[in-house]
Every structure is written in C-alpha cells, then in structure tokens.
C-alpha cells in the first residue's frame, strides 16, 4: 500500500506538467493541473493509510 501511494504521487506530478505542455492558457489547463494535484492527494492518502499501525487501521 505504502509503495503504491508513493508511485501514484509522481503520476500526479507528470499529469500537471503534461497540462502546461499540451494546453494553451485556458480553463482546460487549470483543470488538468488540479486533476494532477488530486491524484497526488490520493497517493498521499494511500501512503498514509499504508503507514498506519495495522491494529489502528480503519
């Protein structure tokens, strides 16, 4: 779990970078950067859950 989360985070970063490369200044570019940040947030969430002590995991 913890490593899966850590692998998802760079995916979000690459999504944000791809947004500024692929789109001209537009709402779509902003939306893609925000999607990249959302993916990173999911990765952190998964990594945090993976690092919780087993007996305290929800």
């Amino acid at each position, binding site marked *: 779990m*913890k490593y899966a989360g*850590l*692998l998802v*985070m*760079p*995916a*979000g*970063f*690459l999504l*944000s*970078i791809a947004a*500024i*490369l692929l789109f001209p*200044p537009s709402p779509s*570019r*902003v939306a893609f*950067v*925000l999607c*990249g*940040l959302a*993916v*990173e*947030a999911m*990765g*952190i969430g998964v*990594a*945090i*859950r993976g*690092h*919780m*002590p087993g*007996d*305290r995991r929800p």
Partner: protein
Amino acid sequence: MIVPAAQSLAPSEFDLALALLFLAPLAPAGVALLNTGLGRSRSAAQSLLGSLLVVVTAVLIFALIGATFADSWTGAGHSFQIAAKPWNWAGTGPWFLNDFDTASARAQLGTLFEFIALALTVLIPWGSGADRWRLTAGAASAAILAALVFPFFVHWAWGGGWLAQLGPNFSLGAGFLDAGGAGSIQVLGGLSALAVVWILGPRRGKFPKEGLATAMPGHNVVYILFGCLIALVGWLAFNSAGAMIWLDAAPTQLPRIAINTLLSAAAALAATFVMTRVRFGKPDASLCANGWLSGLVTSSACASLVSPIGAIFTGIVAGVGVPLLIEFLELAVSIDDPSGAISVHAAAGIWGIVAAGIFAPREGQLLAQLLGVATLLGLILPVIYLLFALLNRVIPFRVDPDGERIGMDLHELGGGAYPEFVVHRDDSFR
C-alpha cells in the same frame, strides 16, 4: 507587485541585505529551541546537540557538493528541451565554491541565503524524529538533503530553474514565486519530516493497542514560547532579505514585508488561541506556539506579495487549520509528530504558496504556484522517502527499545540535560 530579480544591486542595498542575513540564523535557533521544548526531558541534550550536528553536516555537504547544483551565481544550468522549451534542471556552478569571490554581489548574497535556509530545512525533520531518531542517522539524512534534494529544488525556484521560468516559457505569471522559502525551506522540510516519521514509526507507548493515543506533552513550554519569539526575528530577516535577493524588492518595500510577516503570525496565534480556548476551555500553549509558527511559515510565501489585510487573512486560516490538522494526524491516522512539523511547515507552507497565487494580481500566477506545490508533493516527497528508506537500510534510523526507554540523552550521550532533576517513572511504558 514585485517582479523577479534582475542582476544589479546597489552597494547600500548589499549592505542592508547582508545585515538582514546576519539576523536570519535566529530562525533556525528558534526552531531548534522549539524542537527541544516539544520533546521529552530525557532527550533534551541529544535534541539540541543533534540540531547543531545536522546543521553542521548539511552546511559542509552543501559547500562541497550541493552549492554546485543549486548554483545561483553563474546564471547557467543543465537543460533539456521539451516542446521547444528549455527545462533548466540543475545548476552548473564550480565545485567547492571555487571562484566565489568573482560572483556578483546578488549571487553571493543568494548563496549565503541558501546556506541559512538549508540550516532551517534540516532542523524541521529533526524535531519530528524526537525521542527516537539516532544522531548519526539524523546527520546522514541531513547530508542527503543537502547534497541531493535541497540544491535541486532551490535551483528550480531561486536559481533560474524551470519553476522560475514558468512565466516566460508558459505565460504563468512571473513564474513560481517563493521569496521567503515557503516551498524551498518549509514544505521541503515538512515533507522530509513526514518521510522520517513514516520510517521511524511512533514512539513506544504513543498508540496503545486499545484506546486513544497517549498524550506526550513537550517538557518545557518556556523553551517553546521563547523559541517562537526568537524565530520571529529570523523570519523578519528571511522574508526581507529574500524579497531583496530573489524579487528585487527596494529597501522602501521592506517595512511592508516586515509588517505582513508580523501580522500573519499575530493573526495565526490569535486564531489558535481563540480556537483552543473555545474547544478546550483553556488556551493550549503548545498549539498556540504551533499556530504562531504556522503564521510565520505562511508569511514566507506571502509577505512580499499580499496586502496587510491579505496577510491577516492567510494567518487566520493557518492558525485555525494547523491545530486541527495536528489533531487529525495524531488521532485519525496515527502519525506521531512531536514537533507538529508536518502540519506547521508542510501544510502551512503549501497554504502560503497557494495564497500568494490567489492574492497576486498577475494572470497565471496561481497556476505557477500550484505547479510548485505539485512538484513538492509529487516529485520531492517520493524522492526523499526513497532516499531515506535506502539510508535506513545502511544506518538504522531508530534507536533500540532500551535506548528509547532510558532516553536519548543517556543512551547516546551518557548524561542527561538536567542531571540535578529527579526523573520520575514513565507511565506510558505498559
């Protein structure tokens, strides 16, 4: 709005910036005192000695290796091309600070700023590993940050790297703006703290198998609050000098930057004070200290870019949000962070970076700031975790259980910080 720096600096401006940088080490001094006060009495000497050790290690390694990649004085850099745009990813400075005397006045100040910034950066995770992180492992991790992580990010943000060039290359405002080091110091340090607590795990007895987390309050509230006051002086110097060096701010703009710094910290402390008073019936000194520090951290990004009202608003948000996040991390996801660095430095730093984009009047600035945050979370955090996890295989981070039981002072130094005090039994070991 202040614009990114040109190369020239008048002699009087050089003198002023240099004088400010001589005060900036009070920021790491305050944070070291805070870290020590928030830890336990049986680890106090190890905590302060460790603070010196991680700073010494980081500074030496940065001078030998890191300054080359950070390179804020030659103006060149290693680049590659994607979509016909240059991506400057590393500096090409001389090794071992050779020819430093020939650098421009601004570049020399910038390098001095980076040294002091690094000292603060490596102290942040040291506080989170309190009471269980071995001295040698702490020093080795500081060396890794100084050689392989900090130099690259500061080059991207301050040394003309790809984040700083987002403005001219992609029409994103003035590029990533971080004059006081909210990203390069605070968020980087806070994310290092997260990696450290993940690898170390919680202190023994912190999260019993049944029931709530055990409260392990800081051993000296006076250290904590005095550290806050000392840190204020350092932050005023950091934000003012950073604005002069990285954003070309004129000396006449420094009073507003200093006032914004103070307002942000004051608003954050007031918000935390009121919130803890309402929730717990009495204000909580440790959380108020964290609130004060979160306001200072937020001002690192915002002080040179927002109005005084904006500084108050960002401070209030930090002062309300940080104590709630500290509580969430401890109670909901079982993260044992004695100094609260993940919330105070990483979360408040991210909020400051985003707020700077919200309040900056330049089009595209918010997106540039968000890309800076995305880089820290999506690239820097996994890299730090990977490097620290590998280091942990070579030099184990965590002290053995017996060392944790008797305290880091006795285990690592052979003597305590308070030899004349009677140490009572610890009920958290069950």
